[in-house]
């Protein structure tokens, strides 16, 4: 090439034309979906209520009968009688409720664990996708740099030489 003919713009245009191949890029990794409320426990208020109200009364409260008149005495008598008759059933029911609360508590805990695990799996998948995309981007760069049609003919030693530090081996 003559000195007067050397024009960097022309050289660059020629280089780009010579190396023009189909360009390819990997898909970008998907964004991790965020939960709308961002909380793990959805029914915290209901569970709190259960914790505070599962123990039902096991005896009649005389105050509910009101005053000290004959009517109150009759109501109190029937109330105590009712609780004495229904006592075993009410205790069983209270035991049942307490177990239901415990089961709900365990379910809540398990749900939280599953949500965390799902999020971790999702994050692991996104990380892996990002790593794959990065690696594929490097591979794409190498393919763009060295079109197979010209590499084999012009530079047979390039792919195998060097320190092996290239995208295809990583």
């Amino acid at each position: 090439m003559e000195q007067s003919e050397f024009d960097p713009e022309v050289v660059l245009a020629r280089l780009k034309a010579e190396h023009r191949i189909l360009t390819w890029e990997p898909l970008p990794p998907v964004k991790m979906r965020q939960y709308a409320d961002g909380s793990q426990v959805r029914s915290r208020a209901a569970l709190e209520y259960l914790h505070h109200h599962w123990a039902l009364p096991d005896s009649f409260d005389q105050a509910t009968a009101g005053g000290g008149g004959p009517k109150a005495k009759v109501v109190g008598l029937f109330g105590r009688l009712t609780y004495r008759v229904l006592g075993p059933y009410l205790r069983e029911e209270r035991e049942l409720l307490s177990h239901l609360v415990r089961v709900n508590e365990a379910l809540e805990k398990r749900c939280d664990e599953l949500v965390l695990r799902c999020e971790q799996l999702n994050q692991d998948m996104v990380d892996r996708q990002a790593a794959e995309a990065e690696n594929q981007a490097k591979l794409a760069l190498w393919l763009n740099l060295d079109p197979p049609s010209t590499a084999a003919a012009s530079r047979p030693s390039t792919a195998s030489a060097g320190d092996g530090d290239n995208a295809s081996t990583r």
Partner: protein
Amino acid sequence: MTSRSSMAAPPDRPVAVVLATHWESRSEGGWMARQVAGALANRADVHVVTPDGSVPGSGSDGVFTLHRLASPVTPSAELRRDLLVEGIAATSATPVPMLTPELSTLLDEGMIAPWAGAVDLLASLAPDLAVIVGAGNVGALAAVDRFDPDLAVALLPLGSDEATLTFPHFDPLFRRAASVLTVTEAERSAVVGHHGGGERVHRIGAPLSANPSARTEPNTWIGDAENILVLTGVDQGADDEESELARLLRVRFPDITVGVAHRDAFCAWRHGQVTSGWPIERSSDLDRLLAFARVTVDLDPGPLFARRCVTSLLFGTPIVVPAHSRAREHAERGRGGLWFTNPSELVWTVEALLDPSTHDSCSALGLAYAQSEYGSTDDFIERVATACGPVTAPSRSAVTP
């Protein structure tokens, strides 16, 4: 104007004062300011005034007299100003950012007060010319105007980025300057494009040379074998774009020695084997590499005029540089190399310049360009003298665009 005191020069030589926020020569800007002062010293007595220093005083510094005010501009003030300039320029909806008085006050905070002591010093020196170093040196301008609003002023903007050169807050410096001294054509175009007045904006280049002894002393780690020299601005273990590009080149050209100059080490790669050596810190060591390189790839060229690239051209070594850098001017206008915008183009351009005929053409053209615009100290002195006007009038016309 105050009459000249006993500190001033004899009456037959003019007095020039160079006002620089910092006086150092590590950075390209600092080195350039020193060269301009040196060029002025051929025809004038040069006094350098800087707020730097811990103890105020004057002393000799080569051919200059250095006056330290010991009221340095704090790094935080400079950082705040730079951040504001960059932020406002980047977010402005209009080409010329609109500034409120509050922003102007914030920009000047900590930048003007350190120069207060310069006024009395200027009065004692009674200069004929003030050279203000830095496009944003509003403190020096304030001191000059307080001393004498009619004093001839030359501005050395050292504009590494267009945002600073065109920032409206600094317009008074360009309006006040009788002449503006730019280093590269890119800098000159930016100044003229925004401030106009092409006749008073001069491109002065820089005084550089190829060290002849470098041609006989190849670097011991790389020898005199044909090699690609890659200059980075990062450490060897850095995980960033420059490291990736350097790695790409050494893997891509396994049969050619690739010398990679990191900030903390020099590595010569060939066939996947590496020879490590000391970092390249002295200019003489860099010269020995540039003299024997087939191609110089500068991944981190200097922000003002890419000094390493010009030196490479002076050794006849073509350059490959990032497209968005000041070094591109040397490759494009000087036809001393090629530039790239992505890794693929980097490899293609290096491949192209390894071709003997392309290399030889580029080498010859680049060498001619570098010698013409950067290779003569005498021409540089003439250009500076011409740019600074009648105070330091040259004996012959200068080579300015």
